[in-house]
C-alpha cells in the first residue's frame, strides 16, 4: 500500500476542509509547490492534488500551479477536483499527470470515462466514489444524489474501471477513522482502491494495509503533525515475494498427501524441478518424507542430480539429524537445509549449523496445529505434540541462528482451503527473519492473503502446481496486479 499525501488547493493556497465544507477551510501554506517538494523529499511515492476551486466552480483555476508542480517534482501526481470535461482530463494526462480522478463526470457521462480508459489505459483513470451516508456526493460534495454507492460501483465495473478513489465525506478532515466496511466491499469487487477520508492514525493505516488496498491518502493528519510521512513510508525495496515449489520426495519420487496422509505419486523430482525452474519458481524445497536410513542414499543421489540441473536456490529437509548430514547435503549442492524434529530435540544443532555454514542456509521448519486455542508445535511429521508454542519456538529458533522459518499449518495442509493466516501473521510479526507460508494454498486469493494478511515473505506451493491447476506465471501475474512485488 502506498501512502499518498494530499495537497488541496483553494485560491492558490494549501488548505484542508472539514467534511468537505468550504467555510471550514484552514490555510496551511501559501505555496503548494513548496509543500509538494517537501513531501517528495520525505519519500512520498505519489501526490494527490485537488483543485478545490475547480471542484466548486468547474473551472480549472489552479491548473497552472498543478502543472508547475508536475514539472518540478519527479514522483507521479494524481489530480482531482472539477475535471468535468474530456478536454481537461486529456490536457492533464498529456502533460504528465499520472492519474486523473473523475467524480461528477463519471456519474453524468460514463461514456467519456470509457473513452479515456481506451485512450490512456485503466491505470491512469481513477473514478471517485464519494459518499455521504451510503449515497453519492457530487460537485465538491455540495450535493448528494440518490444513488447507492454499490450500485454505482457495479456500473463502473461493467465500464471497465479498475481504479477507485473512495472517500466518506463525513469522515474527511475529521481525523477519526476510515469507513473500513465500505472499503472492503470495493476491494472484494476487485477494484484497486485508494482510501481517503479519516486516515489519521497508524492503526487505521495498518488496518487499511491488511485490507489489501492500493493506497491511502493522508491530509490533515500530516498537516497537523499527528502523523509523520517519514515514519509511514515503507523502505524502498524491490525484493519480491517468493513463490516456492515444494516437492515431497519418497524413494526417489515426488509424492503428495492430504493432511500428511494418503500419498499419491506426483512425478520425477529432477524433471519436475527443471520444469518449475523454467516456469519461474523462485525457489524449490525437497522434503524427504520417509527419511529412513536406506532411503538416505537415494536422497543424496537425487540432490546431486538436481544441483547439476537446476540453477535456482533449493532447500532440502526431512529427517536431517546431525551436522554431518547437513555438511553432506550442502556439499552436494543444496543451498539450505531445513531442520524440524532434530531442531526441537536438539536446539543446539541450529546454532552449530549456523556457525559452520552460515545463518542463510539454516531453515527451521515448524509444523503447528491449534490445540485448546494455542498453536502448538508438533514433532515427527506431525504425529507427536510438543509443549512448544509456535511463536515462542520461532523466536527461539531465530535467536539460535535460523535464517528462515518454514511454517506449516497441519490442519490446512493439502486441503486447498487457504493458509492459516492467524498462525502466519503471529509468527511473521514476531521474528525478523523471512517466514515461508506452507499448508493450504488453494487459489490465487489464498496466496495473496498469505502475503498481505499473513505477512509472509514466501509462499510454499505443492499440489496446486503438481496437478497443474495453476501455473506459476499466473500466480506471479496475479500478485503483480495486486501490487505485490513478484518476479516474472
Amino acid at each position, binding site marked *: 500500500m502506498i501512502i499518498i499525501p494530499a495537497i488541496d488547493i483553494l485560491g492558490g493556497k494549501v488548505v484542508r476542509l472539514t467534511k468537505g465544507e468550504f467555510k471550514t477551510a484552514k490555510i496551511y501554506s501559501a505555496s503548494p509547490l513548496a509543500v509538494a517538494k517537501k513531501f517528495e523529499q520525505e519519500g512520498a511515492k505519489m501526490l494527490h492534488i485537488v483543485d478545490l476551486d475547480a471542484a466548486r466552480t468547474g473551472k480549472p483555476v489552479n491548473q497552472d500551479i498543478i502543472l508547475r508542480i508536475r514539472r518540478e517534482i519527479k514522483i507521479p501526481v494524481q489530480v482531482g477536483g472539477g475535471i468535468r470535461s474530456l478536454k481537461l482530463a486529456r490536457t492533464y494526462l498529456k502533460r504528465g499527470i499520472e492519474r486523473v480522478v473523475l467524480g461528477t463526470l463519471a456519474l453524468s457521462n460514463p461514456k467519456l470515462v470509457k473513452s479515456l480508459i481506451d485512450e490512456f489505459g485503466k491505470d491512469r483513470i481513477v473514478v471517485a466514489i464519494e459518499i455521504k451516508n451510503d449515497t453519492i456526493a457530487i460537485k465538491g460534495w455540495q450535493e448528494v444524489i440518490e444513488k447507492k454507492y454499490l450500485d454505482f460501483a457495479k456500473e463502473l465495473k461493467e465500464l471497465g474501471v479498475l481504479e477507485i478513489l473512495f472517500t466518506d465525506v463525513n469522515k474527511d478532515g475529521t481525523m477519526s477513522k476510515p469507513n473500513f466496511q465500505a472499503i472492503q466491499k470495493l476491494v472484494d469487487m476487485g477494484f484497486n482502491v485508494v482510501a481517503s477520508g479519516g486516515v489519521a492514525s497508524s492503526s487505521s493505516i495498518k488496518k487499511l494495509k491488511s485490507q489489501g488496498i492500493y493506497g491511502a491518502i493522508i491530509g490533515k493528519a500530516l498537516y497537523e503533525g499527528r502523523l509523520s510521512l517519514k515514519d509511514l513510508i515503507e523502505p524502498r525495496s524491490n*525484493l519480491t515475494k517468493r513463490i516456492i515449489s515444494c516437492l515431497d520426495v519418497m524413494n526417489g519420487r515426488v509424492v503428495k498427501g492430504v493432511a500428511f496422509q494418503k500419498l499419491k505419486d506426483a512425478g520425477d523430482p529432477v524433471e519436475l524441478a527443471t520444469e518449475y525452474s523454467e516456469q519461474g519458481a523462485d525457489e524449490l524445497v525437497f522434503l524427504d518424507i520417509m527419511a529412513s536410513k536406506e532411503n538416505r542414499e537415494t536422497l543424496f543421489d537425487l540432490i546431486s542430480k538436481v*544441483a547439476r*540441473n537446476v*540453477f535456482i536456490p533449493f532447500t532440502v529437509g526431512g529427517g536431517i539429524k546431525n551436522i554431518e548430514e547437513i555438511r553432506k547435503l*550442502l*556439499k552436494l549442492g543444496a543451498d539450505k537445509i531445513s531442520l524440524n524434529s532434530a531442531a526441537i530435540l536438539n536446539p543446539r544443532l541450529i546454532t552449530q549449523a549456523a556457525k559452520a555454514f552460515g*545463518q542463510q*542456509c539454516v531453515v527451521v521448519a515448524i509444523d503447528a496445529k491449534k490445540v485448546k486455542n494455542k498453536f502448538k508445535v508438533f514433532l515427527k511429521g506431525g504425529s507427536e505434540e510438543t509443549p512448544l508454542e509456535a511463536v515462542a519456538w520461532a523466536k527461539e529458533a531465530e535467536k539460535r541462528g535460523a535464517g*528462515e522459518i518454514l511454517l506449516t499449518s497441519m490442519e490446512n495442509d493439502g486441503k486447498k482451503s487457504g493458509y492459516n493466516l492467524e498462525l502466519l501473521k503471529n509468527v511473521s510479526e514476531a521474528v525478523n527473519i*523471512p517466514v515461508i507460508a506452507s499448508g493450504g494454498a488453494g487459489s490465487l486469493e489464498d496466496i495473496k492473503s498469505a502475503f498481505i494478511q499473513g505477512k509472509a515473505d514466501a509462499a510454499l506451493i505443492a499440489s496446486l502446481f503438481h496437478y497443474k491447476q495453476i501455473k506459476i506465471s499466473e500466480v506471479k501475474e496475479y500478485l503483480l496486479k495486486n501490487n505485490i512485488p513478484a518476479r516474472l
Partner: protein
Amino acid sequence: MKIAIINYGAGNLQSVANALRTLGRSFEIVDDPKKLSAFDKVILPGVGAAGSAMEKLKQSGFADVLPKLKIPVLGICLGLQLFADYSEEDDTKCLSIITGKVKRFRTTLKVPQMGWNKVELIKASKLAAGIPNGSYFYFVHSYYLETDFRYIIGKTDYDVTFPTIIQRKNFYATQFHPEKSGKWGMKILSNFCEL
C-alpha cells in the same frame, strides 16, 4: 581456457562448479595459490562470514596473491565484500582490491535480505552484456558494500541503494549469486567466461 574456483572453506563451490559444467567450461577447485598461474580466470565464491573467510585466505596465502592478479577475477556475494578495504562483519580487514567498506543493513526490513531483487544497470560492462536492465537476481546477505561510484555497474534497493555489480580493472564482482539466479545469472557467468 581454464577457470580456478578458489576453495577457502566457504560453501557453495559445488553450485558454481555445476553452473560452469553446464556452460561447458573447464574448471578446477584450487586450494593452493601457487597453482593459480596455470589458470586464466579466477572465481572467488562466497558464503559464510567475513572474519573466518579472511583468516583462511591469509593462512592459505590467497590473500597476498589475489590483489596482484592480472587475469579476470570474479567475486561472488561474500567474495565481493572481501574485495573491499574493511568489513563491519567480525571487524575484518579485507583485500583492498576495491576502495570501500562493508556495512550491515540497518533497516526495518528483514535481515538477511533473502530472495530475488532487481538490478538496475547504470554503466556498460562486458560482465553485464545482454542482461536486460531491471532483471532479477537471487540475493542472500546481511551486509552490503559502500564504494566509489566509478566502480558501480549495477545497483539495487533494499532500504539503502547499494552496488550489486562492480568492476575495477580485471576485478569483477556481484553481490547476488549468479549461479542461483536462473537464466540471467548463467548469462553473467558465461559473460565472465568470455572475457
